[in-house]
């Protein structure tokens, strides 16, 4: 998948990703204000396939999964960061938004063109002839992400259980 890099620093919090003021509304409203305090034009300029690259502790703060949902709604292909806050990380996988850890982020600039290959664990900066290595996901999360998130994953599991019961 090809897109552009949107670069952020450390400690991007959930109040910026999904501002409390708009939590009473639906995802359309929230996504329109995603990351507004950090970068007021983010929701207007990000396009499907773009990749968010950030420093440490991305998604710290609240458990509101709208923080991950807003990024997915805007078409963000993945978030790549040096580290993630735990709840955000789980929420993103549960909603089918790829979140990938990498410590190989030096030299990435905002606006860089990038090809993301999650299976290969690589982010290729096409104009720079540079390949950023991404840490592999644990197997259980790889499976969940491949299914499209927790809900489709559970549907698959329930269907298999029903089939097994019916077969007995």
């Amino acid at each position, binding site marked *: 998948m090809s897109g552009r890099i949107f670069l952020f620093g450390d*400690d991007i*919090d*959930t*109040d*910026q990703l999904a*501002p*409390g*003021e708009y*939590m*009473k*509304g639906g995802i359309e409203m929230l996504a329109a204000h995603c990351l*507004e*305090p*950090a970068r007021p034009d983010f929701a207007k300029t990000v396009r499907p396939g773009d990749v968010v690259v950030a420093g*440490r*502790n991305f998604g*710290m*703060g*609240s*458990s*509101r*999964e709208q923080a*991950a949902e807003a990024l997915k709604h805007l078409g963000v292909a993945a978030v790549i960061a040096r*580290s993630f*806050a*735990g*709840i955000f*990380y*789980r*929420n993103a996988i*549960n*909603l089918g938004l790829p979140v990938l850890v990498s410590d190989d982020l030096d030299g990435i600039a905002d606006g860089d063109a990038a090809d993301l290959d999650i299976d290969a664990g690589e982010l290729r900066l096409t104009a720079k002839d540079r390949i950023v290595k991404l840490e592999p996901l*644990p197997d*259980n999360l790889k499976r969940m992400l491949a299914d499209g*998130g*927790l*809900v489709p994953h*559970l*549907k698959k599991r*329930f269907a298999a259980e029903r089939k097994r019961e019916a077969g007995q």
Partner: protein
Amino acid sequence: MATTLAQTTLAQKIIARAAGRDTVTPGEIVTAKVDLAMIHDSGGPRRVEPILRDLGVGLWDREKVVLISDHFVPGDTDEGARILELTRRWAKERKVAFHDGEGICHVVLPERGHLKPGMFVVGGDSHSPTGGAFGAYMFGVGATEMAGVLATGEIWIKVPGTILIEWRNRLSEAVTAKDIMLALCGRLGMDGGQYQAVEYTGEAISALSMQERMTLSNMAAELGAQAGLIAPDETTADYLKSVGGDAGDWQGLRTDPDADLLARHVFDAATLEPQVAAPHSPANSAPVTEVPETKVDVAYIGACTGAKYEDLKRAARILKGRRLAPGLQLMVAPASKRYQDRAAEDGIMQVFEDAGAEILANACGICAGYGSNRLGEDVTCISSTARNFKGRMGAASSKVWLGSPLTVAASAVTGRITDPRDFLDSGESRP
């Protein structure tokens, strides 16, 4: 000669039991059975019901689900009121325990006797580590994950390592659990907990009441930990008895002396001074004595970490017989109805009213910033809450400083960030 048993942490013991295993090792991924699931009005019914319907299943065990309304209480926006209506309807339909408008979930859950040492609990809120103060392994999850728990009664967990945080000696006068946490956020950073288990220990922790311990466990979230544990003791057992609960068999629930730890940090409680955190991070903390002259417009005594009974009592100690600084607005949102009732009986609520404070609902209030009450443009606020991220409590241009309820009260009287020790006689007994 006793046989040598594997030395394990409190976190490992609870997770092993919940996973149906003899032992678990940090780093391994296991599936655990959930003893209790707590949800609130924001991440709860409005988010989980559509998923349960989509999955075509009901609750795995309605007796293990507790619903608490707090984020959109008092329903002062049209959307908020609608969400509360939906929440109330769902509670009836799904027949779950429901505490409506009785206070903030992290306070109400133990106050109503739902928690017990050794339990494995998930909560649909990031401050769910509060349950760790009772020796329960409790952590926060998002709504989809919660729906998965409600459907199956299970959740996967990567067994955490334990970061032991020891506070030696005793806290001095006017220094509180909030000051400990702001100091820790500053020293360890907002990801110092590494999504592992933090466990608090030491003489200063043993000496703390349950309300103060809850503040420590709650703000393990601000350290980026998954859980914030405190091994149960007589203080825990006494609290649970007082709320009609039963501590059960808690004596073995502790980290063994030779258990492998991820890290161990030792601090001296006796030398800790009151702390404040500058905008926009709890990690921007420093002793209040080092803060340059800072004028404040709004003071807020609220939230699960800053408006429990003892917090209110502390603040009232300073506000008694005093008035707010001219032009300053003080808002007080007692963390639960029970705590507010008790504070009213003891004359504490009267102190706030006499000082000129405005009393808000027993709910998350401005801390979550979900309702109509929000900080305006360029307002400087000092707050007893846990988080001061940019724009969280109102306009992106507002500036929130964090401090203990004592520091907030002292600042409300002077109109600038103030060391609470200026108002307290050293001879006075601690609240």
